[in-house]
Structures are given as C-alpha cells and as structure tokens.
C-alpha cells in the first residue's frame, strides 16, 4: 500500500519537491536527505490525509516544514540558540557549498541568488514558491497557512528587497 503511494507521489511530485528543497537549502546532499524525510512524514500521515487541501499543497506544506526544521537545527549547531528561531523573520541560509549547477550560472543569476539568500525567510520562501516552483498565489497561501493578501504583500516586499540589494551591490562594485 505505502509502496504504491510512494511510486505515485514520486512520479507526480518528486522533482518539484526536490527542486523546492534544493533552492531552499542550497545543498544537494541535504536536499536528498530532506526529500527522504518528506516521504517518511507523508507515508506516515497519508492514511489520514483528508483532502481538505490538494495533495500537491499538502506535500509542499510538509516539505516546507521539513526545510524549516532543517534550518532550525542548523541554527542550533551554529549559534546554540534554538527557541528564538522565527523562520519568517530570519534568513534561511545554508552555510554549505552550493550545488555545482549554480557555478555554471551567468553572473546576473548568481548575484540574484546570492541576494535572495540575504532576504528574510518569508521573502525567500515566497520567491522560491512563486517563481521557481511556479505555484499560484492561492497555492502558496495554502502551503504557508497565510492569506492570499499576505502572500502578495510578502512577494512585493521581496522583489523590492532584491532590487535594493542588487542595486547596492552594483554600486559598491563600481
């Protein structure tokens, strides 16, 4: 039973979930581990999935929680401070090497992704969901447990923040 669920979910969503995770954590090995954890959590809870959200948004909400837990643990190791971690306010930064594909990107894309790393967690999350995963505003809102208005506002602020960071970077490099 669980095996057949895995096969179906893998065929339908695996690469999407993996991409979501790797853009958040910036490390292939970690993304593999986290995708593994997503399956573990999903398979344990699947019998009780109520269909109140779509299967897709349910999977992404679990993946989002798995990723946030990862950053929380990373912060424990780094600063020995666990309870103060607020993913929406803090940066979701992985202090690891980036995937090798990132090295092949053009300079603009590299700068953009670097700027995204320094955005607040809620902004980075929305950018990854809306632009990289091409999720709708409604889907993003459902996954994050936000209103659609909050998604729009956060996206707007994220774009504004990215423009500012990139412009400042340009100015400093001149």
């Amino acid at each position: 039973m669980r095996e057949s669920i895995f096969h179906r979910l893998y065929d339908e969503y695996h690469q999407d979930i993996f991409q979501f995770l790797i853009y958040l954590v910036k490390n292939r090995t970690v993304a593999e581990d986290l995708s593994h954890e997503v399956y573990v959590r999903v398979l344990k809870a699947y019998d009780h999935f109520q269909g109140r959200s779509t299967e897709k948004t349910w999977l992404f909400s679990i993946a989002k929680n798995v990723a946030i837990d990862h950053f929380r643990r990373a912060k424990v190791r780094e600063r020995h401070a666990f309870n103060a971690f607020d993913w929406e306010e803090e940066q979701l930064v992985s202090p690891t090497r980036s995937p090798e594909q990132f090295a092949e990107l053009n300079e603009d894309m590299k700068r953009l992704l670097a700027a995204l790393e320094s955005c607040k967690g809620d902004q980075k999350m929305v950018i990854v969901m809306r632009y990289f995963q091409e999720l709708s505003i409604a889907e993003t809102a459902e996954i994050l447990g936000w209103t659609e208005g909050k998604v729009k506002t956060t996206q707007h602020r994220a774009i504004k923040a990215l423009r500012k960071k990139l412009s400042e970077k340009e100015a400093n490099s001149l």
Partner: protein
Amino acid sequence: MKDEKWSEQQLEELLSQAPKMQDRRSKEDVFTRLKEAGAFEEAPVQRAAGKKRKPFMLLSLSAALTFLTFGGIYYFSQDGHEDASMSMNDMESADQPESESESFDATGISEASIQGMTEDMRTSVYEEQLEEGAAFRIGLVGDDEESVPVTIIVPKEKLLEDFGIDTPTQVDMYNKYAAEIDEEAAGFSEFHPVKGKIEEQGSAVVHTLPDDYDYEESAATDVVYAGVMKDTFGRSYEKAVVQHEEGETVVYEEMSADEPTDFADSPRYSYFLDEQESGVFLSPDLGSAFRTVGEALEYMKVGDRGSYKTAVLPGVDYTVTDGEVVKVRFTAPLDLEAVDSQKAMYMIEAMLLTASDFGKQILFENIVQTEWQGFRFVEPLPKPVGANEMPLEIIRNN
C-alpha cells in the same frame, strides 16, 4: 552594470529563468533508501526510543552563557555565517565555516540531518526523566516583571553530594541552589534568593521575612513575588505561609485573599507562549484564574494578552470534556506533520501544563499521528512535572 537594469520587470523575468534543479538519483535509489529505513512498514517506525533530549532552554541558556563568557566566539560564528552566505559569488573558493566543518561535510551532513530529526522537541520535564535525578522548580523573573516557571533536573550524584540524600525537598533545593542561579546570564532579572528565610512545616512552605521588609513596596513587586512563590513551591506544597520574624502573618492579595495561601485550593491558570528576549517559554497567565480545567483549556484559545500569546495553532479548534482524564478533541483532524513542529509542540505542552496544574492528564483525540515526538496519542499523555527545562549549568559551581 547600471541600477536601472534591476527594474521590477527584469528582475521578475530573471527569477523566472532560474534553472530547473533535478534529483539525479534514480527512483529505485530513493525507494531502496526509504525501504531500508522502514518507511513502508505499516506499523509506525519507532522513533521515540532513544531520542536525544535537547531542551530549547538548554540551548538558549548556553547561548547566553557563551555570549557572556566568550563573546568573541559568538561573533566568530556570525562572521562565518556571513562568509557562507556570500559564497554564492565565489563558488569554487567557498569554504565552509570552520565551526561547521564536521556537521556539514559531504557525508556528515546526511547523518547530522537525520539524527537531528529525531531530537525531542519537548520543553517540559516529565517523570521519565527523573529516574536519575530530581526536578528543581523555580520561578525566574522575566522581561515584563513576571514569573517564568523553569525546571532544572539535578542528577542524583549531585543531590547526594549536596544533601547526603537523593530526595531533598523543594525547600532544601531552593535554599541550596537559589542563590547560585545565574539569573542574569540566563536572561532574567536578579530576584533570588528571596529576602528572609524559607522553611517547611509539614505540607506548608513558610517564608519568614525580616521585620522591616515586605514585597508589597509596589504592586509590581507584589505580583512578581506571588508568581515566584507559586511557580517555585505551588506544585510541592499545599500551603504557603508568609510572616515576619515576630510571627505576624503577611497577606499578599496577589497570592491569596486568605492566609495562609492555600495552593491546593487556589485557582489555576492557562499556559501561554511567553516571549522573553532570552527565548520563548510556556508560562501561566496569572491575570485570569479558573476553577475548572475545561475553562482553563478553553481560555487558551484567546488571542494575545500582553506579552502572552496563545499557543494554539492558527485555525485549530477543539472541544474539552472534563473527567478523571481530560479529553481534548480537535474539531478537524490535526496533522502534526503538516504544521510547524515546534509550534505544535508548544500547543500540546501548554495544554498538558494547564491540565497538570489541575492534577489531570489529557487524552488527545483526532490527531492524525498515533506517535509523535515521544508522545503516544493512543493513551493519556503524561503530566509534566515542570515547565521549561533548563540545564544544570544555570546553577553556578554545580
């Protein structure tokens, strides 16, 4: 490159061109790894056994103590963090932060991540943790001049060394350890030890104040004192007697209109998120008292109350049925894997603490998982013996 290059439209176009990232493993590889981990077994994988307790307060305190003692280390960590975030511009030369090298090397990251996922996120202390120690409870004074209940597990060896027995009373432990607690290092205000003498007489704790001193100098102090006494001794003694050296009884209305204060028969409170600068705690809101556990659990649904914030997850509702065991039934199935695990833990433990103040356990109903983070929802959950575990290191010279 000029500033105008980064127009909103161009930025959005660039974002939309981000490369697709693929998992290069085969489906078979992913399947095999999951199978080896037991993910396809119908019986839930037993993850609770052998969990590594990593109470959040322990980590927070460590941060505070580390900062105070070795501030440079903290900044070093910050610098490493910054370096890492900037490494996007220089992939080939990006070095991992020195302090992280073990955790984040190519193979170690996998192990650390998976191990971390089994860490126990519980923040309260439970009976099962006291096989080799005793719980010392104390109310520490927080940012808003309120008492924050914390619990320290003192190992048996230390108890034997300090008291000659491994079952000292709360008063014994208070008199030994209260003066040695580094409150400021832990992010609290200096308050302990209280003025005068703390003793016990049967089931009562007796606080004898100097004749020229009382805690009613201001309303705030009165409130703080009442909270501290309740959080420190309320679970261990039935009554509290406050008196001056001459024997004259002191009545603090914030503690009780009667004297002596009857802990056993006094109203109880609901637990809320208590956000301090040093971290998040679960504390009773002494502003609203209840006579029944049902009322107290229902009251937890109210929104923010000053520095207290509801621990109930947004959109979650429940009904409460009082009884020998309190039943809390979530109106809609609660999938603990689909919500923030830390916040879910806060909610569950806030309910457990609220019920335990009434001497009751909770049986949760309509939770998707049967086991989660060391809790088994098929049976009533254990009563916490204390809130907000803190490490022994908070006591100097331990």
